[in-house]
């Protein structure tokens, strides 16, 4: 049975919720300082009520108000014109860095002023600083004056993640494979600007270094002028499913948003709209409605990439059924892109029809064209 606050507990519960909503993770004992002297019955009621609204399993035994509850509290005070007063009240109490960040984000002061945030993002701040900002803006929600910069902060974090990935893959250096790299560079020099879709196929024995080769090629491409936007769909990630075109398009747009921080907010909005339910007669699940391309998101994606004026290198790694899939993925997504290159990286297996190849100790780089009429027909072409 859920206990509801009675008259005696209503005010202390409201006070405790206000404290929690305007704090980072907090020690539950600190609530007693906020409440002052209260009867045991009231203290128990407050604790029970707040435990329901908080994640009580946070690190270090601290409590953290759940994001959805916090947003509701903030919205409620804002609608009643009490938010500023609540913030001032909270500032009088002991605080920590996370709490100060939240309060600053809510009023847009200090490093949470829009101009200061733009400067921080532009100055290639480190992960810790960006994480702090992202968390504070997320917690403050749309009440934060600088909430609009959140997507740019997320993009900056995403770029750091991509850098970490590259470091993990290439940190021990990349040696040799100059011939294959030269083939890739030459191929990238002629990106696709119209159909039919062409792709570069890289195959070889397991562990031979196909992914590393592509990573190195991607690293060089993203350092070129203009830098390529690298989109990596690694099908070792089981979340990626060629049957789920909605999911694939969402993932492509997420990665493009990371690469293009300026337009991240536009893409984020389009992604949220595409991820919701579609008006459909069938179930909106993989293998059914989600086989359709989300055209609105696709259109936004095309517009954003077009404005950026940067070519896209799409890497399809660990493909196991790339015949049809390699064609499906860019279909509908790339129509508005200025230029696009697709690299398919696949484990060794009987290759495209017509392409009988020997097993080899070298990765095989192979250009092919996907005929628009017969998606499973592979037409080998010189790289």
């Amino acid at each position, binding site marked *: 049975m859920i206990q509801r606050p009675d008259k005696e507990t209503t005010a202390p519960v409201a006070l405790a919720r206000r404290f929690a909503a305007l704090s980072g993770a907090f020690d539950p004992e600190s609530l007693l300082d906020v409440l002052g002297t209260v009867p045991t019955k009231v203290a128990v009621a407050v604790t029970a009520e707040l435990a329901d609204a908080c994640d009580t399993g946070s690190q270090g035994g601290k409590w953290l108000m759940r994001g959805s509850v916090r947003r509701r509290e903030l919205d409620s005070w804002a609608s009643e014109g009490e938010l500023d007063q609540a913030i001032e009240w909270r500032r009088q109490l002991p605080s920590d860095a996370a709490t100060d960040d939240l309060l600053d984000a809510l009023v847009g002061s200090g490093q949470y002023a829009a101009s200061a945030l733009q400067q921080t993002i532009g100055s290639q701040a480190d992960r810790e600083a960006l994480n702090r900002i992202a*968390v504070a803006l997320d917690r403050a929600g749309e009440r934060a004056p600088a909430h609009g910069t959140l997507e740019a902060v997320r993009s900056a974090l995403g770029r750091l993640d991509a850098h970490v990935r590259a470091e993990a893959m290439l940190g021990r250096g990349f040696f040799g494979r100059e011939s294959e790299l030269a083939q890739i560079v030459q191929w990238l020099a002629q990106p696709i600007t119209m159909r039919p879709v062409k792709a570069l196929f890289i195959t070889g024995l397991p562990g031979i270094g196909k992914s590393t080769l592509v990573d190195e090629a991607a690293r060089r491409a993203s350092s070129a002028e203009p830098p390529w936007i690298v989109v990596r769909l690694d099908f070792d990630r089981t979340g990626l499913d060629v049957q789920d075109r909605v999911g694939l398009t969402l993932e492509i747009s997420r990665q493009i948003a990371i690469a293009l921080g300026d337009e991240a907010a536009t893409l984020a909005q389009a992604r949220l709209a595409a991820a919701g339910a579609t008006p459909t007669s069938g179930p909106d699940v993989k293998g059914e409605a989600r086989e359709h391309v989300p055209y609105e998101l696709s259109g936004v994606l095309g517009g954003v990439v077009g404005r950026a004026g940067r070519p896209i290198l799409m890497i399809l790694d660990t493909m196991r059924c790339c015949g049809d899939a390699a064609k499906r993925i860019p279909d509908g997504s790339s129509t508005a892109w200025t230029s696009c290159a697709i690299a398919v990286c696949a484990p060794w297996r009987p290759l495209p029809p017509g392409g009988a190849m020997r097993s080899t100790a070298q990765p095989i780089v192979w250009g092919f064209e996907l005929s628009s009429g017969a998606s499973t027909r592979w037409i080998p072409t010189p790289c």
Partner: protein
Amino acid sequence: MPLDRFVDRVLGFVKVDTAPTSLWSLDGTTAGPLVVGRSLFFDAISKGGEASSRGRGVRIKRRAIDAGSSGLAFSHDILEQLLSRRGPNHRLVRVTQDEIVPDLVADIRRRARLKGLAVPDPPDAPGVAPGSAPPETTAKDRAAILAVDLEALAAAGDSVIWFFFDNPTITLSESSRLAFEGFVDAALVQPHLRLVIAGFETLPLPGQEFGVASPPEGDRSPGLVVEFIGGFRRSDLVDLLTDASRDLTHTAANIGVIENTADLAVLNLPNFNGVYADELLPTVSERLRPQLELFRTAGGGG
């Protein structure tokens, strides 16, 4: 007192005392938060508890994502109530992401331990060490080890461990995304693990998706039932009233009363093609409560 002296008086009650698979009120009272339009969720959780089910839980998505996430969090409370009725063999671990965790797999392990599950530490030398393979592979490997450990615990205790993942309210890092994907992938194939994933709509996840609670046999590959939340219909109120009537009066529902109450509850409320916005739920709930009180009184409730 010997049982045979009064067994006839209690036998009827015991026979009907099976755990209900649905809720009409979160706490079973007429004043509690009413549960409207979640029949697919109830069915999916009920079927998901069966060992042979392909549906290994629920993926809850919002029809309109910018509508907020309060409905998602409410799903946890519903799940908690449903599982508590099934007895102690159904364990629930809630994983929230309201703050940044450096290692999501470790955090899931920690949260499972907080629920009394003695999950062992991972091996010192993971199968795929960081740096020796792409991060995707490393994350998948670490998550799979955790899922296997959890499965062993659950199987040994003949229990089912449910994981409820709250929609993150902070930005997910790349490592968290990969760890989450890896855990979902690994947990789906474990017979004693179940998942309820609230939100995460923009994140493609592994496994099959089903639009119904009892998916066809197919190739037996496991997946999650996808439930879309947001908005409700008059028929959802009829379902709620029917359940409440049966629960409170212990007799068959009076269809006429129920239909009339549902009509009054949505009277003059705006709708789009018969779908009412969630914002109207408080109004509708208050309109339903007098009839719920009448049910309670008729059933002899104090």
